[in-house]
């Protein structure tokens, strides 16, 4: 009797601590959110203690999400320019782009840098309304070279400015000139021409439209442009603000049109990144690709010169084809910068044409917002992109910048992926989106 009994006890003691620890960890995972929240509260408390002090500060901090080598280099060069002209030292804290975006709530409520990178759009206005961003109206008094569209994009709900635009990039349909010349393709100006062209490309052994949505956001660009072409800019704004119903016939028509175009898109999009899709365009396997100007990052040398684009063709002649997505990147100021004076100086410099000139010289994949900048250094593609945006009647930011981030990431990403998986059940998908929207927008 005694032997098995002691055996059992002996064996129970063999359990390594790591196994026992797992139990605790699984619980912690569940509670991680709460833990993070408590931390947030504590951090927010700390942030309150230091308020804007004297005006003779010799340094200012800049929180940057420009973590890719090229944009990071551009930020460093712009900041150098500020140092030379003002004598104020800038400490740049660069954080991985996605991490920066995901942590923005905690970051702003903790001890943010004096000046930080952000985007125009709903989220900027939201932070302004919550009192998490500094009023930049006096900076705007010193800025020149910005069109009204940019000023409007920098204005919060209370009519004050909270944002300094630096650069922007349009979304358009990109293609390789050499491929199109060789096959004799013409730039389509209507949806019918686009479908005919797509059918021709298929016959010629090309994938008509490169497509990728592994990360969830590229498909938003397709939705946006179809919505802008079919229902117009104002509807886009109202839909993003939660004022229009997703179950309306107008939205249904967008998805119906998209479903008609899906056979022209590259299949298996949900397992592909935009970089891979861009490479299929670069390798001349795909005929065209709807993406932002940053698609050029996947091209170099002669290939980059071969890259051209056209704006998405007209679908409804009463709406036209003059609106587009052109997200604006720029800078904002923390609610309580350590030195408001230095932060204001830096922001004024960042919005100046000097800073824009440095950017033009160093980054060919973006456009500068300041019209006073010397754009002689633009590539042909940049010049064309600037003309396209200049001629646009309305400029949207992008689905995930124009609406609540919780709606964009937890509702729209799964919904659009669901649609790409199964384009047949449009009304079921839209009913679900509308129900979730009602729940989120009322909270």
């Amino acid at each position, binding site marked *: 009797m005694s032997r098995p009994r002691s055996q*059992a006890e002996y064996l129970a003691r063999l359990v*390594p601590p790591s196994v026992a*620890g797992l139990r605790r960890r699984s619980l912690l995972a569940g509670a991680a959110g709460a833990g*993070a929240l408590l931390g947030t509260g504590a951090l927010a408390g700390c942030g309150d203690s230091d308020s804007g002090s004297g005006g003779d500060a010799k340094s200012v901090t800049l929180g940057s999400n420009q973590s890719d080598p090229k944009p990071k280099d551009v930020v460093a060069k712009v900041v150098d320019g500020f140092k030379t002209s003002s004598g104020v030292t800038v400490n740049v804290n660069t954080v991985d782009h996605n991490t920066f975006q995901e942590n923005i709530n905690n970051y702003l409520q903790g001890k943010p840098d004096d000046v930080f990178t952000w985007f125009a759009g709903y989220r900027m206005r939201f932070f302004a309304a919550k009192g998490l961003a500094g009023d930049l109206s006096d900076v705007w008094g010193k800025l020149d070279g910005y069109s009204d569209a940019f000023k409007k994009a920098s204005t919060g709900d209370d009519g004050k400015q909270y944002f300094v635009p630096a650069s922007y990039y349009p979304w358009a349909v990109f293609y390789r000139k050499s491929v199109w010349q060789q096959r004799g393709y013409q730039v389509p100006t209507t949806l019918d021409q686009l479908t005919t062209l797509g059918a021709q490309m298929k016959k010629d052994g090309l994938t008509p439209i490169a497509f990728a949505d*592994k990360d969830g956001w590229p498909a938003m660009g397709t939705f946006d442009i179809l919505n802008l072409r079919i229902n117009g800019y104002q509807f886009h704004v109202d839909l993003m603000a939660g004022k229009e119903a997703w179950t309306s016939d107008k939205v249904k028509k967008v998805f119906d049109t998209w479903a008609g175009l899906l056979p022209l898109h590259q299949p298996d999009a949900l397992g592909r990144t935009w970089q891979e899709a861009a490479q299929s365009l670069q390798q001349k396997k795909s005929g065209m690709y709807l993406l932002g100007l940053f698609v050029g990052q996947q091209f170099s040398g002669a290939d980059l010169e071969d890259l051209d684009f056209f704006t998405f063709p007209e679908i409804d002649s009463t709406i036209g084809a003059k609106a587009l997505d052109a997200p604006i990147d720029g800078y904002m100021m923390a609610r309580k910068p350590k030195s408001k004076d230095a932060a204001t100086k830096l922001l004024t410099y960042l919005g100046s044409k000097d800073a824009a000139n440095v950017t033009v010289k160093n980054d060919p994949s973006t456009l500068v917002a300041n019209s006073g900048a010397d754009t002689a250094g633009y590539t042909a593609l940049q010049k064309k992109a600037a003309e396209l945006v200049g001629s646009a009647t309305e400029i949207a930011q992008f689905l995930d910048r124009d609406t609540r981030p919780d709606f964009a990431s*937890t509702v729209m990403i799964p919904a659009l992926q669901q649609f790409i998986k199964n384009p047949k059940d449009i009304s079921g998908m839209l009913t679900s989106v509308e129900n979730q929207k009602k729940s989120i927008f009322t909270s």
Partner: protein
Amino acid sequence: MSDLPLIQADRAVPPPAATTATGGRGRRLRLLSGTDRVVITLMVLVPLLLVLALVWLPAAATVLLSGTDWDGIGPLGEIDWVGLKNYDDVVNNYPPFVPAVQNNLLWLAALFVVATPIGMFLAVLLDKELRGSRFYQTALYLPVVLSLALVGFIWQLIYSRDQGLLNGVFGGDTDWYGDPNVNIWAVLVAAGWRHVGYIMLLYLAGLKGVDPSLREAAAVDGSSETSTFFRVVFPVMRPINIIVLVVTVIESLRAFDLVWVINKGRNGLELISALVTQNVVGEASRIGFGSALATIMLAVSLIFITVYLWTVMREDKR
């Protein structure tokens, strides 16, 4: 609420309890000096406070927050109470939830039916003292040592649609990670690969501890290898069997890293843990809603923990 301190408590408490029973109250008081009592109190209090502060307080906060619509911004005083709305939304108004539950169950079934038995079988083989058994042991255990992020990367090289080993060798064009009907199985293979090594090591440790005289006795009685294992060794290993079962359940509940590395738990790879993270940690900040999901996960974990503790305690009484 970890099981380790409890197991220790179970084993550690009986001896003093026995003295109390035989020696009576006065004797026990004499056994413990003042310093002893201070030390004991500290040894109980400190871990208790740590567990409360690091485990139960956040867990209780999660449960509380799941009744609110907090977005993570602003002071705690501004939080609005919304009752059970978040739970209603999770179940009736959140398409990824049902697939996530299904995937968690599938994960449990796959680990339980396939990976765990394979791990146990390998342990039995390695227990036979084969030549090079240390090498096999190391090779099989290696995936457990690697971080899941690295495991995800290794399998990405195998599964990639355009540049992967699998499609390269067999010439197919299956979209292993992108096709929602296929990717969960592809990920389960990767997760199982790792789980097998884990179970193997656990079970091997148990097998090494089985008294050889039991097997000898069985052999003398004319029992075959198979029936010796199933009728003698397996029943003796009951505590280890329970641990293996619990580890399997925990692994399937806390499955997260792999799917997060692959596509952040979307498009066929939904898991409850990934949904919690999507809602709470990212820019979305649906903290109330995410907490509701976390609470559901907590409740499910509690069911398994209760069953486990109940089994262990009942065994002790016997």
